[in-house]
């Protein structure tokens, strides 16, 4: 049987309001944990891929921090929220090509400072603004929230999507989080709580928006043959794909209506030899409830424009047809960019979900970056492909 690639180790630092450790230190701690989880030693790593949040750190100096020697692969990567999926796919291709045998992929970030609100971690303000771009910020386009609000509003105007349908995603995601001891926000919420939460950028309420977290998550990718002999059950990489539509801001643009998931999804599912009907759970990048809604459509779990009704039907929750963001996602769990959905997928594929374990035979993992500009999709399974 042809060899494949698999995730053999998962390492997570404390996540959330974790202070006193730099992103570099957090990254190193997560890599150590992932390697130990796999039953390997640090010296057995021969590849390291590093990604960071908006702070620009850490980079490849993590290898030095860890004392890694004789690496065959060492790169800092950035495709924003799509980076985690991209890193895992490049790690898999490196293993399959023989360029490296054992590759750690890590994301670390520490935007939160003590005594600072989560929102202010990314806030920009100034008395003077420069150039046309500065004018756009001066007029009010100062946060990612506003850009996603523009996207969500366009979907609402075009397809009749409602705030209550977005709220259904917030509620089901919190329901999952209440069962996850790792989640930052575990108190159940109602649709009324969502509707009553303050506007961040209308049509987005506070409970439509993700958390901000400090911390790091790493995984170790190696060959399926080797993973079978290591400490934990392998999580097999069946497929991967990326989509970067390059929406031009001009007449005819699909901004807010269709995302790169419409490209990355079919590529990954074709590679895996599956269709959306084969997916038993989804881990979708949820910087906002709206991101989940439009991703569900673009992956083909429902028709275009039907994401709102699909979410409101209860499909995404613990008793639903497509358990989605079973760890509480980034809305209620923890905000580690694309590593949030990857980490929950690994936990689920291993059957380690405890009170939140969902059917995990075929897991679709989605990353989203920029303002719906960059997508990466993974298809993961506890089963070996072709077995």
């Amino acid at each position, binding site marked *: 049987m042809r060899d494949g690639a698999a995730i053999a180790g998962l390492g997570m630092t404390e996540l959330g309001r974790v202070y006193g450790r730099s992103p570099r230190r957090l990254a190193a701690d997560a890599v150590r944990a992932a390697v130990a989880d796999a039953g390997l030693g640090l010296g057995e790593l021969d590849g390291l891929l590093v990604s960071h949040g908006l702070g620009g750190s850490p980079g490849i100096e993590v290898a030095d921090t860890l004392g890694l020697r004789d690496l065959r692969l060492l790169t800092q990567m950035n495709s924003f929220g799509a980076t985690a999926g991209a890193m895992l796919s490049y790690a898999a291709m490196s293993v399959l090509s023989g360029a490296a045998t054992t590759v750690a992929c890590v994301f670390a970030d520490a935007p939160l400072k003590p005594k600072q609100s989560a929102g202010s971690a990314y806030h920009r303000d*100034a*008395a*003077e*603004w*420069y*150039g*046309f*771009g*500065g*004018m*756009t910020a*001066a*007029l*009010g*386009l100062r946060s990612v929230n*506003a850009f996603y*609000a*523009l*996207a969500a*509003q*366009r979907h609402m*105007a*075009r397809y009749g999507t409602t705030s209550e349908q977005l709220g259904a995603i917030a509620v089901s995601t919190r329901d999952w989080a209440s069962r996850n001891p790792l989640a930052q926000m575990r108190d159940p919420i109602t649709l009324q709580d969502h509707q009553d939460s*303050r*506007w961040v*950028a*209308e*049509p*987005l309420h506070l409970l439509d928006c993700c958390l901000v977290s400090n911390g790091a998550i790493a995984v170790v990718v190696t060959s399926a043959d080797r993973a079978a002999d290591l400490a934990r059950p392998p999580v097999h990489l069946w497929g991967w794909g990326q989509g970067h539509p390059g929406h*031009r*801001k*001009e*007449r005819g*643009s699909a*901004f*807010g209506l269709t995302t790169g998931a419409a490209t990355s999804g079919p590529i990954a599912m074709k590679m895996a030899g599956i269709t959306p009907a084969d997916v038993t759970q989804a881990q979708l990048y949820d910087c906002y409830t709206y991101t989940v809604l439009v991703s569900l459509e673009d992956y083909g779990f429902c028709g275009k424009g039907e994401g709102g009704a699909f979410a409101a039907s209860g499909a995404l929750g613990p008793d639903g047809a497509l358990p989605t963001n079973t760890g509480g996602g980034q809305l209620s769990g923890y905000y580690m960019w694309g590593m949030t959905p990857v980490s929950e997928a690994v936990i689920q594929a291993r059957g380690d979900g405890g009170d939140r374990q969902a059917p995990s035979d075929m897991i679709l993992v989605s990353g989203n970056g920029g303002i719906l500009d960059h997508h990466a999709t993974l298809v993961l399974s506890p089963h070996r492909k072709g077995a």
Partner: protein
Amino acid sequence: MDIGILRRDGRTDGFFDAAARDRLAVRRCPSCTAAAPDAAAFLPPDATSCPDCGTEDLDWADVSGEATLVTWTILHGRPAEDGTTPPPALIALVELAEGPWLYARLDDLAPSDLREGLALRARFVHPPEGEAYPLFIPA
């Protein structure tokens, strides 16, 4: 509304030259426009090259200032210490009649007025200090 002070950046000065005389200007690719005069190749004011032919030699071109509403968000200010809340800011993506989209601030409109395709036009504000800038109002 107080938006702070706008300064030039040396790369988009043509936009503010036009705004000073109450005109909206965008970039235009001269070579693509010459190749297809009926489909003038207008680009956003912050474009640095033509995505079709690659040239960095772009013109500034006055456009009509007419636009339609693509999508919008309503930004609600936080209450001040005296308990008053500033009026919400209506922020939009507008499609210029010539094709490019601009991020824009709307004025003379209530949230209940907003709908996809609403006809708009640019009106310029000339603050006492700093550059002039457009707002978009009902056409």
